[in-house]
């Protein structure tokens, strides 16, 4: 009886949100899953035909490959760099808040307001090449060669560094100071403290930070799209571009199948994340 009453109360608070979530997100997505097994034109049941089509599709292979490669390169760089910054930041309490603000600021900057700067930065006669030329380094045609891949990486790191720093700093400040004191008394150096105390205590945060960084990574499309448009140089052609282009052509079969495949991969990641959380608790 009490249980039913409590469930009723919860429902009262939850209902408006749950109804909207079903209407706008869940039901339409279930519809898309259904569609991925049918033909959009004839309405016939196709089995896995749509899935086979996308896996044989050149553009899909290119985009999926680039997206995987993008994550494979940028996540290790971001996670390591942000950890390094966080360790250095927390060593010195002076101006800690100010420095953290500076690192976090890019997260707040609307993409639209830096498009112009990005265009100037990566132009073949642009600022970055100007800077390189000061050290007599040959400039690179960033937007039209395979260097375009690095435009993505740079944009991503720039925007997400502060986010990861905040997460690491939270993890580091959760480590008891007495651990370090005891280690110092025993004669441990700074390097030793990092490997024997800081790192082991942060392993729990590592997985969470990696997954969150991955999911934030999909937004790099905003910079990529605004700087380079629908069909950028092929090394920066991501799954997000492909979805966008299929959407414009209304290739519903392919979009449905790709939405199901990508959704399933992300769902696996999220479930793994939840398991990791449960283990820690």
């Amino acid at each position: 009886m009490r249980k039913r009453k409590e469930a009723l109360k919860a429902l009262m608070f939850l209902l408006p949100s749950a109804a909207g979530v079903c209407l706008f997100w869940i039901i339409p997505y279930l519809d898309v899953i259904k569609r991925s097994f049918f033909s959009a034109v004839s309405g016939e049941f196709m089995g896995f035909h749509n899935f086979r089509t996308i896996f044989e599709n050149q553009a899909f292979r290119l985009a999926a490959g680039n997206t995987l490669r993008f994550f494979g390169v940028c996540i290790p760089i971001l996670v390591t760099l942000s950890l390094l910054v966080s360790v250095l930041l927390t060593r010195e309490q002076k101006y800690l808040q100010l420095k953290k603000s500076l690192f976090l600021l890019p997260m707040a900057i609307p993409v639209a307001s830096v498009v112009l700067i990005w265009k100037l930065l990566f132009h073949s006669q642009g600022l970055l090449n100007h800077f390189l030329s000061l050290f007599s380094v040959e400039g690179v045609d960033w937007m039209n060669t395979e260097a375009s891949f690095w435009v993505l990486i740079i944009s991503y790191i720039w925007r997400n560094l502060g986010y990861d720093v905040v997460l690491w700093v939270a993890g580091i400040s959760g480590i008891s100071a007495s651990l370090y004191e005891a280690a110092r008394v025993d004669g441990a150096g700074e390097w030793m403290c990092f490997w024997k105390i800081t790192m082991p205590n942060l392993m729990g945060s590592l997985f969470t930070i990696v997954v969150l960084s991955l999911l934030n990574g999909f937004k790099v499309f905003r910079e990529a799209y605004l700087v380079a448009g629908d069909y950028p140089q092929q090394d920066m052609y991501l799954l997000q571009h492909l979805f966008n282009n299929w959407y414009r052509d209304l290739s519903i079969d392919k979009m449905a199948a790709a939405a199901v495949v990508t959704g399933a991969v992300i769902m696996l990641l999220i479930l793994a994340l939840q398991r990791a959380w449960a283990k820690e608790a």
Partner: protein
Amino acid sequence: MKKLWSAVLWLLALICVFPILFVAAGSLMGSTEVKELLGPALSGRKGYVSWKLFPQYPTLKSYVELLVDTPGFFVMLWNSVKITGGVLAGQLLVGVPAAWGLARFSFPGRKAVFTIYIALMMMPFQVMMLSNYLMLDRLGLLDTLAGIILPAVFSTFPVFIIYRFFEGLPEALMESARLDGAGEWIIFWKIGIPLGSPGIISAMVLGFLEYWNLLEQPMAFLKTKELWPLSLFLPSIDMKQAGGAFAASAVVLFPALMVFLAGQDYLEQGIISTAVKE
């Protein structure tokens, strides 16, 4: 050695903020000065683009031209305000009670609901793009601002953030209020909202930065130019009008910067709350 690391850190921090400084400087330059600096990119002249942090002849001309002579700009600014304001207001109305319901009561299926909410909040837009389109089409909301605002109102992200903060409140507080005869709504209003307000503000700060910056949805679902938010206007400016573009960029940047400065503590708490284990 320590000094060296400190210097490296400051250098990295400066790299993070340079775009803001560049935009600010560019918006205060006259168009001749901008053209001179950008010459190599604009006209294919030899040499490299260069930039200054301090304009030679600072002027507000670009701002005046933008705000006085570009009526289209105001329409889009207003659209951005409507989208951001509408989404945040809706999220408050729907999301705060939902977070309370999830955090304070136990009921069958609670774990499943929670998992679905987390999954939805983490799905990139592209995965949901087709389903979004089909649903908006069926409801006749394509090419309307409501079609951008409504799905975002039911985003599960703010529910999750606020949930984290509600969850931490001690149950004894609610129990004693119940003993005093307070109903569930009163408890929610008088105890939940005041004590959970840091979470609510965190969700709003993160939400503002997200929706002020919204790009994918309007690009996909709004055909009518008069409905576009600013994030679609800026990229359409030609490099040749670079002076005005910098002023427009600065105007877009300003509210986001203010929210960031005012709400930074909440922003950090919000970010941390996405990563703490359940």
